[in-house]
């Protein structure tokens, strides 16, 4: 384990989108350029981190120079760097798409005929302006929250990143100012806040029982005799995270929220945001609480995942609208992810299950993002996304 004090790439991964978010808020006209700039610049710390990870192994960074448990540390191992790489890839692609989708960008885009974004505050020019004004700062905050979550090793800090992630995600859904989208955003917000509170109470129980918030230190402390507080805290945090990950039967909020958001937002939510809470579940179950989580509980999560695959796929096939179909398919695909829990704890094939599971995470992120982006373009072209009428429309497009 090396300390990355000399190469601040870990910090840049969080500070760069955060600074971008402030810049996009301060200069709304330049927001798309800021977003694209951040998306490009982020590759420098990402690749730097990747190189160091390969050559030196796990990286960590003590913020403020305070050692854990007093301070907060960032940590990058294979799993988190893999996911950061995925976020940078998908996030960059979606940013590029969004410059076209929301208009207001200065170079060749079919939507550049829209009135300039001004700062979109009067909402009189077709309702598009405030979408454009809100999207960039919120998305950059979301990006910062994703990276911060993937790199943090402190439980309370993870709670703050979850809230940052949840609030910006909800606001992004509410950008589509339609009645259905507002209802979906409201439901998403309630679920997200309930999930965060359950997680926070779990964190509080951990602190009460073990006196630390640092994940590796907690892991060491859990090695001793198990008090009831350990499993109960894990249960609470898991319940909160399952709500945010939308595992069946807690998936009810996902399809309306993902289907009614603006297309780039749907892509980000389905591809990246649900994966963040899934990543935390992996961390908690397989690393920190490995001694507490029983194989029965793992099997239970696996069964829920299996049901989600069947139920989500069945619902997807029944949907009349393209974006809802894609959203329900997310419910199903998330079910596949949870098959990882029982499979990887099996004595044989644990590594294969991990490799397969992570490959699936990446594949789903790319595929689902592209699907939602394509659905958004189809919707723009056809003016709706009713499956029954889309075929005719597309025949004409050719």
């Amino acid at each position, binding site marked *: 384990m090396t300390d990355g004090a000399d190469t601040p790439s870990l910090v840049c991964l969080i500070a760069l989108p955060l600074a971008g978010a402030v810049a996009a808020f301060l200069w709304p006209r330049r927001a798309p350029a800021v977003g694209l700039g951040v998306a490009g610049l982020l590759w420098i710390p990402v690749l730097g981190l990747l190189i160091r990870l390969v050559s030196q192994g796990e990286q960590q960074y003590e913020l403020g120079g305070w050692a854990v448990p007093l301070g907060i540390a960032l940590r990058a191992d294979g799993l988190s760097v893999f996911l950061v790489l995925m976020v940078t890839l998908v996030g960059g692609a979606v940013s590029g798409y969004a410059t076209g989708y929301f208009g207001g960008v200065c170079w060749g885009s079919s939507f550049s005929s829209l009135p300039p974004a001004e700062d979109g505050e009067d909402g009189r020019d077709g309702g598009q302006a405030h979408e454009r004004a809100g999207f960039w700062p919120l998305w950059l905050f979301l990006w910062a929250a994703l990276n911060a979550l993937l790199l943090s090793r402190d439980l*309370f800090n993870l709670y*703050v990143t979850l*809230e940052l992630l949840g*609030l910006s995600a*909800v*606001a992004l859904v*509410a950008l589509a*100012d*339609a*009645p*259905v989208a*507002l*209802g*979906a*955003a*409201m*439901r998403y*917000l*309630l679920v997200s*806040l*309930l999930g965060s*509170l359950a997680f*926070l*109470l779990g964190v*509080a*129980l951990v*602190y*009460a029982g073990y006196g630390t*918030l640092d994940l590796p230190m907690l892991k060491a402390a859990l090695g001793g005799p198990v008090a009831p507080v350990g499993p109960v805290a894990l249960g609470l945090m898991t319940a909160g995270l399952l709500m945010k990950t939308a595992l069946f039967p807690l998936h009810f909020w996902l*399809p*309306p929220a993902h*289907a*009614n958001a603006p297309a780039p937002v749907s892509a980000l939510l389905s591809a990246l945001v649900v994966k963040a809470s899934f990543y935390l579940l992996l961390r908690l179950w397989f690393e920190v609480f490995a001694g507490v989580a029983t194989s029965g509980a793992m099997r239970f999560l696996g069964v829920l995942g299996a049901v989600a695959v069947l139920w989500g796929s069945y619902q997807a096939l029944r*949907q*009349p*609208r393209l974006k*809802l179909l894609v959203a329900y398919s997310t419910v199903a695909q998330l079910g596949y992810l949870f098959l990882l829990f029982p499979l990887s704890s099996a004595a044989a094939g644990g590594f294969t299950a991990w490799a397969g599971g992570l490959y699936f995470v990446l594949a789903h992120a790319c595929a689902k993002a592209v699907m939602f982006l394509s659905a958004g373009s189809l919707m723009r072209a056809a003016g709706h996304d009713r499956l029954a009428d889309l075929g005719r429309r597309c025949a004409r497009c050719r």
Partner: protein
Amino acid sequence: MTATTLYALAGIALFGLGLHALIVRAHLVARILALNVMGAGVFMFLIAVAARNETPDPVPHALVLTGIVVAVSATALALVLALRVQAVRGRAGLAEEESPDA
């Protein structure tokens, strides 16, 4: 049983009260109120934990201060969303069996 244990348990009870109201109430303002009570319960538990020591542990205090500010931000956003829902739907509630493509 000490006073701090009682406060800790009261925090858990507040969490439970809020959770129940969050599930059974339909009006969005009532549900946001319920989330605030749940949050107060978590804070009370944390501060009771801090008070177990001779000099109170400042770390939970700092966590709760952070939590209070996060809570007021979330509440403000939730209330504004509730108002928008009322404005476009005529009622500040979410229909239970709502077809997503209404």
